[in-house]
């Protein structure tokens, strides 16, 4: 069971604890609690269903940021085998907010890149909370060039609050690093599948998001700005976060409706963190299916397909 939980998960967690207690009592053997246990289970099931059916966009954003949510490494280890991590942008540093390397999916080579948030305080600091510096993006691009060279499909896992806004990041060309990634990703001739697994934080996420397929986990969000940032700028009021999240239409369902993503990947009831393994296996099945479709295409077709996909994004009238 997750140790950290969100406000709207609290009731469920409390009831689950009570259920455990009941079961323990039952095991001691003095009385028969089996009917109470059943009743409790039913109640929990109903509560869980009701809670997660009616989540607001802000609550879904919190799910996307859930401290117990599976991160890139969790998906990599559960979905892929033979992972060999590689490091460094050959220019300045390693950029540990982004991780990646060679791996196998069903014994076939893939190159996987993920944005990695930290689990404990020490790792959080080391990963800079998943907010990459330019060297992270340049490392990712170097890895993608390798994939292009060896004709290896690319899988990217997006999960970042955003590219890091700091002095060093600006000095070393955060904007250039992101821009370069966008134009080069649009030109590769291998299959690229991008999955928003948590927080798709603006340009910092998009920098790894130019794919032939763009998937979102059910409780992932993908937005031009965080609800907090939007509230501060447009409402000039930090407390309008809920309103901002609603207005931004940033959930997986919203983006599918807007025609900006290809598929929403269902999570187990209660969210990915309730069952990380199962979630990774669900995602693996979806990736397999898309990859099978994409490997039917020629290298040139893959490039043209990716460009055509982005060409039609964004509605207008004339």
């Amino acid at each position, binding site marked *: 069971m997750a140790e950290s939980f969100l406000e709207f998960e609290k009731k469920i967690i409390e009831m689950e604890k009570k259920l455990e207690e009941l079961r323990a009592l039952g095991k001691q053997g003095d009385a028969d609690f089996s009917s109470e246990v059943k009743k409790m289970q039913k109640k929990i099931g109903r509560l869980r269903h009701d809670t997660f059916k009616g989540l607001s966009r802000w609550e879904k954003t919190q799910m996307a940021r859930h401290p117990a949510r599976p991160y890139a490494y969790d998906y990599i280890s559960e979905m892929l085998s033979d992972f060999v991590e590689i490091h460094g942008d050959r220019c300045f540093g390693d950029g540990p907010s982004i991780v990646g390397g060679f791996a196998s999916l069903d014994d076939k080579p893939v190159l996987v890149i993920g944005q990695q948030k930290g689990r404990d305080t020490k790792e959080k600091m080391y990963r800079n909370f998943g907010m990459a510096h330019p060297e992270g993006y340049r490392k990712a691009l170097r890895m993608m060039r390798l994939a292009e060279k060896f004709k290896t499909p690319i899988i990217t896992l997006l999960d970042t609050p955003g590219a890091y806004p700091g002095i060093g990041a600006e000095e070393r060309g955060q904007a250039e690093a992101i*821009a370069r990634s966008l134009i080069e990703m*649009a030109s590769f001739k291998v299959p690229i599948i991008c999955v928003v697994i948590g927080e798709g934080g603006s340009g910092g996420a998009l920098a790894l998001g130019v794919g032939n397929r763009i998937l979102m986990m059910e409780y992932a969000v993908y937005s031009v700005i965080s609800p907090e940032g939007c509230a501060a700028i447009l409402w000039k009021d930090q407390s309008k976060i809920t309103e901002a999240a609603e207005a931004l239409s940033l959930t997986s369902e919203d983006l599918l409706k807007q025609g900006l993503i290809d598929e929403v990947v269902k999570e187990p009831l209660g969210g990915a963190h309730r069952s990380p393994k199962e979630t990774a296996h669900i995602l693996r099945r979806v990736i397999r299916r898309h990859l099978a479709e994409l490997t039917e295409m020629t290298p040139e077709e893959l490039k043209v397909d990716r460009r055509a996909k*982005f060409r039609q994004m964004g509605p207008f009238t004339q």
Partner: protein
Amino acid sequence: MSWFSRGKSPIGKIGKRIFPEGVFIKCEGCGDTIYSSDFEKDFRVCAKCGKHHVLPAYRRIELLLDEGTFEEKDENLQSTDPLKFRDTKKYRDRLKSAERASGTSEAVVCGSGKMNGWAVELCAFEFAFMGGSMGSVAGEKMVRAIERAVERKCPVVIVACSGGARMQEGTNSLMQMAKTSASLALLGEAGLPFISVLTHPTTGGVTASFAMLGDVIIAEPEALICFAGPRVIEQTIRQTLPEGFQRSEFLLDHGFLDMITPRAELKSTISSLIKHMSTAIPLENRPS
């Protein structure tokens, strides 16, 4: 006779955002007062301190293109307000007042023209239209300009002046970063030059996409050019930033610009650059 009292402006719709004759403007640099007709004649550069003030898109076009050669394209494109966005105001109302304030139909004005005889596709950002923010229309207009350039084999010049991606269209705006960048790849494959001009201010998703992808990147003096704005950084690191941080001169020092060019020399600099990168440009798009 000042330039704007001529019977017919070279562009036709320049009148809306120029200062009327006979008023004084306070320089944002030195604080001096400048007579409005001098201010406009110098394309809003202070003669005393050299401060480059934000220039409206149509005046930018007048600065860069040969008189009477500009043909605006796609000015009828309009936002559909895909999210029915509303903050303290409705997005639709913001669009209407932006149009009134700027005299342009969107945050970027695009079209074909000639620059010292060279055929070009030019896109000029209009800061008075919602801070020059890039939404779906701006993205589409630039991509069309790039595609026209590929079609007729001429260079693209984009003059950025923007607060970044437009929040009111949500992720649609974010995707314009990828859309414009991908279309520049097409231009590159055709061997055609893209000259990116960065003016004050160029920030956020605009900097982190097409603006940083010029074959040559030129900035005007002392322009703020960044990914994250100074205020965001100060809030994150809880420090005040050093003087000149994220200004043109800082970016040149750090290797992210090719040159800093004062407004008065911009046209001649760009057209001479085009000449040096013109292998793929056919005779009909060259100066006669």
